[in-house]
């Protein structure tokens, strides 16, 4: 793993450590009173603060997960080189697009 990937993975891990705790706390708190999906969406639509939070969350995941998967594959399989890096770049793009699409759907006005 080169220094840039290492730095990117560690910095996004730092972001995710907080983001995951906030996310889990929020969903547990939100459903404890029996709120339905429709009730939740009614509250989240148009919430810019949460949209920004989950936007950052998605970007951190899209950077962090492919780098980690790359490390695992390089260490435990014979798959190295450009095809691996290209495939994981696509995975990063997929996570980013799907994640931001979900953020737009849940928090968009």
């Amino acid at each position, binding site marked *: 793993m*080169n*220094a840039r*990937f*290492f*730095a990117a993975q560690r910095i996004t891990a730092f972001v995710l450590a907080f983001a995951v705790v906030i996310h889990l706390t929020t969903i547990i708190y939100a459903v404890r009173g029996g709120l339905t999906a429709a009730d939740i969406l009614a509250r989240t639509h148009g919430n810019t603060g949460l949209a920004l939070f989950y936007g950052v969350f998605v970007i951190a995941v899209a950077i962090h997960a492919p780098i980690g998967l790359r490390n695992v594959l390089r260490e435990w399989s014979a798959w190295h080189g450009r095809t691996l890096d290209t495939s994981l770049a696509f995975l990063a793009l997929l996570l980013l697009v799907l994640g931001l699409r979900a953020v737009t759907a849940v928090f968009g006005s």
Partner: protein
Amino acid sequence: MTEALNVEIWRGDEKGQFQSFAIPTRPHQTVLDVVTEVQREHDATLSYRFACRVGMCGSCAMVVNGRPRWTCRTRVNAVIGGGNHLRLEPLRNFTIVKDLAVEMTQFFDKWKEAHGYFEPGPHEKSDFAVVSPQSRERQAADAGIECIGCGVCYSACDVVGWNKDYLGPAALNRAWTLMNDVRDFDQAARLDAVSGGDGCQACHTHMSCTTFCPKAIAPTYSIAGLKRAAVVGVLRGAR
């Protein structure tokens, strides 16, 4: 004299096998004493390395009862656990030359790859450099400077076991001591050398090197220092 030691020693190369010897137990006997007695009294063809016998040269390391150790400073009583069985193998992660002697070339080549040598710069200095013993850099260098190049950490390292190109704890520890040498002129190139795909970031912090180092050095912490330096380099746009 009490019960004889049952000593199993690896013979041959990678395709070798263990050979057993019965060696008398003696007070304060070291593992190296046992190997020397086998060679002198039982089988003169046994190959192994040693030089100083006092823990300075780093040439007598072997795997003793499953753990890498310096054999000249390891007493038999400390490793047989009340029994009488001693099993001696060549260091792991090295190519076996014969019996207990391993090929160290790749190990020391990696010191060079990691820029584990002092770079004095282009100009001769007119005076001695003054380095305070209390300075952070000097203390960080001191913590790793006593490495004797025995290969115990390299033998213990899981990452070396699955990636033969990984620079390894000893080379990275040496690079870290030089990163903290304020007189050195090659820091950027050294940071590049230790930050490749097989450099410091490949370390999984299993800490086997730190556990087994006979000099009580902590290469894991040296490698962590290199990782920090590399991240700082990225953030500053230097890399």
